[in-house]
């Protein structure tokens, strides 16, 4: 190390101008990129401008292969994205965070769409057509023996389950989307007016080619969803309806089951072979449109738990943005004030370095917003503010090193170089620890917290860059200026400041 340092020292000392030129080239390049790309605004996260974010956790659905696969998550993301886009809200985002099968799907929609988003994305939208076997009043019935012989295809276990089910309780009317199409099921009507035992599904959601919202022309009110089947769907639905028309009530009804809940169970009077079906049930236009969209884009290949739902009003968003900015300026101001008070002349260098680091950070935020869809969240702002301290720390490590070297009796010019060689290592090791920390935080965190890790890591890298291409060369330049080299009381390098005997400093300076 000692030999390489020897050969390197004069080089860096001799060419501060070249390094500074590199810095200005980088700055100009960034600036022109910003203009060329037209990235003039930092994209703000939902917590700063209001909006709804939903985090979905994949879960194994009953009846599926029993494994959450990466492909299934990708497919779910694209289906959810289509559904969210059908809302027509600009800058909505659907992303998968994490890696492999251990991913969450994060949906963010700006503005105050609130619950609509939650309903839209959380629905598995597994549509099934099942023949009704038994229909009854919603309340639970006593399980005192089987009064009537269960109809064909209904086991005693199913019958007991049916008796126990109480559809008047809201908790029993949560659509789960976990029904196995090959088994008979016991379930409730969506509005809780009756309960059912249903036969295995005969027509599935994937048999649908088109879905749209329509208004009942005759009554002029009452929205419904019109379904169009594909070829095989038309055949299967035709066969199902042909068969049940001949049966007695309630077995001549076909239940339309969405995510395990009966939407409606119309009686089939005649075979339907045209390939159309309607879902009715007190829909508003929005409800009908959303349901049609959900059905059109298909069912999710996975079931999801709603991990977290966050709805932030634009007012709170604005408040948080303001608070973040105030905290940022306050923090920056305090650090600058302290640097100037303590390091005086050298403090100017640290202020300059902070400003350079700040502008690079700002420009990169703009560009990343454009390229990577980077959004600045409140946690991100906090990360940037915390980074002010970390950035300033590198300067302190360097400045204190210089002062140590001067205390050892070196001239300022040589102290700047020897101090740099020693400080450089400390700074790199310490910043690297910071970078490890942010990388791990980024990997292990979800949601807004990732923003914190990202900005912290980014600003630490910027700090390293600035220390190398700005702070060090500028100190080299300043060391030649008399104000600093003579140890002026305001330079931060005066003998009194350093606590060295005056004679030594003057002699060697």
């Amino acid at each position: 190390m000692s030999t390489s340092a020897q050969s390197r020292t004069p080089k860096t000392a001799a060419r501060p101008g070249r390094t500074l030129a590199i810095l200005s080239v980088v700055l100009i390049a960034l600036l022109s990129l910003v203009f060329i790309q037209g990235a003039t605004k930092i994209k703000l996260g939902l917590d700063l401008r209001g909006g709804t974010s939903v985090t979905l956790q994949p879960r194994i659905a009953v009846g599926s292969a029993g494994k959450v696969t990466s492909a299934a998550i990708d497919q779910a993301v694209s289906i959810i994205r289509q559904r969210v886009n059908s809302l027509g809200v600009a800058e909505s985002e659907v992303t998968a965070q994490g890696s492999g099968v251990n991913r969450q799907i994060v949906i963010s929609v700006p503005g105050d769409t609130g619950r609509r988003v939650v309903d839209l994305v959380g629905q598995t939208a597994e549509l099934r057509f099942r023949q009704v076997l038994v229909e009854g009043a919603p309340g639970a019935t006593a399980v005192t023996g089987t009064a009537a012989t269960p109809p064909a295809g209904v086991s005693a276990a199913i019958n007991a389950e049916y008796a126990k089910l109480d559809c008047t309780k809201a908790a029993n009317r949560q659509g789960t989307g976990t029904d196995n199409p090959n088994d008979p099921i016991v379930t409730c009507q969506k509005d809780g007016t009756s309960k059912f035992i249903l036969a295995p599904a005969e027509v599935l959601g994937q048999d649908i080619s088109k879905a749209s919202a329509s208004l009942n022309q005759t009554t002029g009110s009452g929205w419904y969803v019109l379904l169009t089947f594909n070829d095989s769907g038309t055949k299967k639905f035709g066969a199902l309806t042909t068969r049940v028309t001949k049966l007695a009530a309630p077995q001549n009804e076909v239940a339309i089951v969405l995510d395990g809940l009966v939407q409606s169970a119309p009686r089939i009077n005649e075979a339907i072979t045209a390939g159309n079906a309607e879902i009715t049930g007190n829909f508003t236009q929005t409800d009908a449109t959303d349901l049609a969209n959900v059905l059109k884009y298909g069912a999710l290949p996975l079931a999801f738990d709603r991990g977290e739902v966050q709805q932030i009003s634009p007012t709170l968003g604005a408040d948080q943005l303001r608070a973040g900015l105030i905290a940022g300026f306050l923090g920056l101001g305090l650090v600058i004030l302290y640097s100037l008070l303590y390091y005086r002349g050298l403090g100017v260098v640290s202020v300059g370095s902070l400003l350079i680091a700040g502008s690079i950070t700002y420009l990169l935020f703009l560009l990343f917003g454009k390229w990577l869809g980077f959004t600045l969240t409140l946690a991100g702002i906090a990360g940037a503010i915390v980074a002010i301290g970390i950035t300033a720390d590198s300067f302190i490590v360097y400045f204190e090193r210089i002062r140590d070297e001067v205390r050892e009796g070196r001239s300022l010019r040589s102290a700047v170089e020897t101090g740099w060689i020693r400080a450089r290592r400390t700074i790199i090791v310490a910043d690297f620890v910071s970078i490890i920390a942010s990388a791990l935080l980024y990997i292990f965190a979800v949601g807004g917290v990732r923003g914190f890790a990202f900005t912290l890591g980014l600003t630490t890298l910027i700090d390293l860059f600035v220390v190398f291409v700005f702070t060090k060369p500028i100190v080299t330049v300043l060391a030649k200026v008399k104000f600093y080299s003579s140890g002026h009381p305001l330079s931060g390098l005066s003998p009194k400041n350093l606590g060295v005997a005056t004679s030594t400093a003057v002699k060697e300076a």
Partner: protein
Amino acid sequence: MSKLAGIGGRLYRGDTSFDFIGKRRRWYAFSGVLIIASALALSIQGLHLGIEFKGGSEFTISKTGASIADARSAVASTHVPGDTIIQKLGTNKIRVQTAPLSTAQSNQVQDALAAKFGVSADSIDTQIVGPSWGKEITRKALYGLFGFLIVVMLYLAMAFEPKMAIAAVIAVIHDVFITVGIYALVGFDVTPATVIGFLTVLGYSLYDTVVVFDKVRENTRTITAGSRMTYSQAANLAVNQTLVRSFNTSLIALLPVASILFVGAGLLGAGTLKDLSLALFIGLATGTYSSIFIATPILARLREREPAMQALSKRVSIRTTAPAETAVKASGTQARPTTVLTEEKRGPRNQPKKKKRRR
């Protein structure tokens, strides 16, 4: 300020010296008491986990003159299960936290609150966390913590010495324990933002330790060749030499954090900013303490066990009992006796080998 700078010079030369390593038992005892207190607080009171960890729904209503009683009656009217915590944030915000609810139930609560306070449901800020989500978050946080400790230990072992890595990680674990203890004792809310703040602080606490250890390593690189000072003495000198630096870096790091805390707690009342900065604030304080008072003494203790270091301290103690006149003469400046180093010159100038190598 300049007075502080003057102290820096004296500390650097070793004219003024605080005996951190010699009095380590005192600091160990102090930390031991803190750790026992933390363990007690943790087992008796436990951590006050936010809804992100235990699941639940949170509604924040911004309305001037909104009262807790109104919010309570609105929530009561919906008959949702579980305990409900209602707090006033700042002057015009009410925060309602409930047990985990289904989507339908939280919609019900939201509607009831909206109706009670005469605001639209969409203007109520809500956060709904599923019960299983908390486990996921906790799991990730723990992975993050352990992953961090292991990676950092490996890295420091490579960048410095294995024993430095051990000492640094012990200090970090010490910080974790005490910070968690403070949270349990005071009953601050623990949210994901807290955990993140906390993991950041671990990185930061290491930054501090790295700065000190770097100097220790420099001071002790050629130590076994001479017989001027023991490893402990050299390490103690390093701590003293970096004291001003540690003070400055910690203070500078604390200033922005303090401003986030001030703004987050003062203007917003609660939320990400406050949770994050509070954890950072507490962690920074313990981190600075531990890198000086815990990490370095442990490192010294570990190294002193090595045969080479024991031989060294034997040589040093022989010199101390029979002072080497040449050394005193050579150093040229007057000695200031301190409790540790009775007559030795500790300044870097008195380590000629090191100086030659560096140049």
